[in-house]
C-alpha cells in the first residue's frame, strides 16, 4: 500500500499528504493530464487497464488501490 501511495504521488506530482480515504479529484494537482499519468502508472506498475467509463466510478485513493490489487 505504501508503494502504491508513493507511485500515485509521483504520477500526480503531489508533495502533500495522501490518505487512502481522500477523494483524489479534490487534490489541487488533479487535472486531465495527471489522469493520464495515473492510467499509465496503473498499467505499468499493476498491469491494470481501466477504461475511462470505469475510472469515472472511482472516487478515493482506496478505490484506485483496490482496482489495482483486486483482480
Amino acid at each position: 500500500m505504501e508503494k502504491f501511495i508513493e507511485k500515485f504521488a509521483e504520477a500526480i506530482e503531489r508533495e502533500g499528504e495522501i490518505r487512502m480515504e481522500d477523494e483524489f479529484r479534490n487534490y489541487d494537482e488533479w487535472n486531465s493530464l495527471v489522469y493520464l499519468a495515473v492510467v499509465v502508472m496503473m498499467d505499468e506498475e499493476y498491469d491494470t487497464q481501466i477504461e475511462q467509463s470505469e475510472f469515472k466510478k472511482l472516487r478515493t485513493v482506496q478505490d484506485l488501490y483496490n482496482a489495482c490489487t483486486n483482480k
Partner: protein
Amino acid sequence: MALFEINNVIIQGISAAVPSRKEFNRDFPGLKAEELEKYIGTVGVVERRCAIHDGTLCTSDLCYEAAEKLIEELGWKKEDIGLLVFVSHTQDYKLPATACVLQHRLGLSKETMAFDIPLGCSGFIYGLGVSSSVISSSHIKKALLLVGNTQSVYASPEDRSTSLLFGDAGCCVALEYDETISESMKFHYQTDGGGFESLIVPDGGCRHPFNEQSMVMEEFEEGIRRSRLHEKMDGGSVFTFAFFNVPKSLKSLMSYFDIRQENIDFLLLHQANKYMLESIRKKVKFEGGKVPYNIDRFGNTSGASIPLLMVTELQDQLRTKKLRHLACGFGVGLSLGSTCFSTDHIVVPDLIEVKQNYNR
C-alpha cells in the same frame, strides 16, 4: 481477428503537401504563458500548418499537388493508373466523392476505379490495406492512395484541446503490382464504435441536421467553448483507447506473422500527442531513435500524419535504403490499424508547401 496479408504490391513513392501558412502555439491568447509552456511540453506541438478555410485551399488541393509531384518524379504515365482512393474526413462536397473530382482533375483515365474512405487518424493504414487488397485481386497495376485532412476547420478557436493540436496535410502514396517481390504487407484492424462520441462533429450530418442551434457557442468547461459544428474531443478516452490497444494490436500483428522487433527499422506512430506516443513507445519497448516524431512542427494531421512523418523525417533513408516499417494509426471512430511493410529505394519528393488562394 481482422488480420491479413497482401502479396505482390509495393510502395513506389510517397509525397506530402502542407499549407505554407503557419500557426504558432505560443501566440495562443486563451492560456497563460506558464500553462501554455506546460501544454507545449506535454502535447509536443510548437507550430502547425493550417489553411484558412474559405474554400481556396482544401484537402483535395494538397493531395492534388502531392500526387502531381509524385507522378512526375516517378515518371509514371497517367493512363496506367487504375485506382484512386481518397481517405479523409474533410471532403470537398457532401457529394460527390472527392476521389471522382480528383480523377478528373489529375487527368486520370476514365478506366479508373475511384472512391472515398471517410476515416481519420487510422486512415493511412486502412487506405493502404484496402488499396493494396484491390490491386492484388484485380488487373490494376498502378494506384494512388491519397490521404489528407484540413481538420483545423473543425477546431473551435476557443477550445484549447483541439485548436492547439490540429494541423493540415495531404499525402500521396504510389502503389504498384509486382510479382517479383517476396515480401508481403501485413495488417491488423480494430474498431470500438462504443467510443464514437469521443471524437465527433455532432451537427451537419443526417443524424443531427444543420439547424439554428448548430452555430451557437457553448461553454463546456473553462477554456473550452465550441459549437455543434466544431469537433469535440474527449482526450482521456482517446488516450486510454490508444494506450491500451496500440501495444496489443502491434503485438497481435507481430506474433501472428512472426515479426521480430530487431528486424524493424522504424515504428511509425500516428502523431497524436507526444505524451501519448512516448507512453506507447515505452510500453512496446522501442528505443527512441526508431520512433520518429514531427508533431512539434506539424501538429496532429490525422490520417496524413504517418506518410507526412516519412517525408519529413525519413526522406534520405527511404531514398537510399531498404527499410522495414511497423506503423499504427488510431483515433476517431474509434478506429485502429497496424501494418508492417517494407520500402526499397522509393521516390520521396521534398515536402511541398501550398499557398492560400490556391484554387480561386
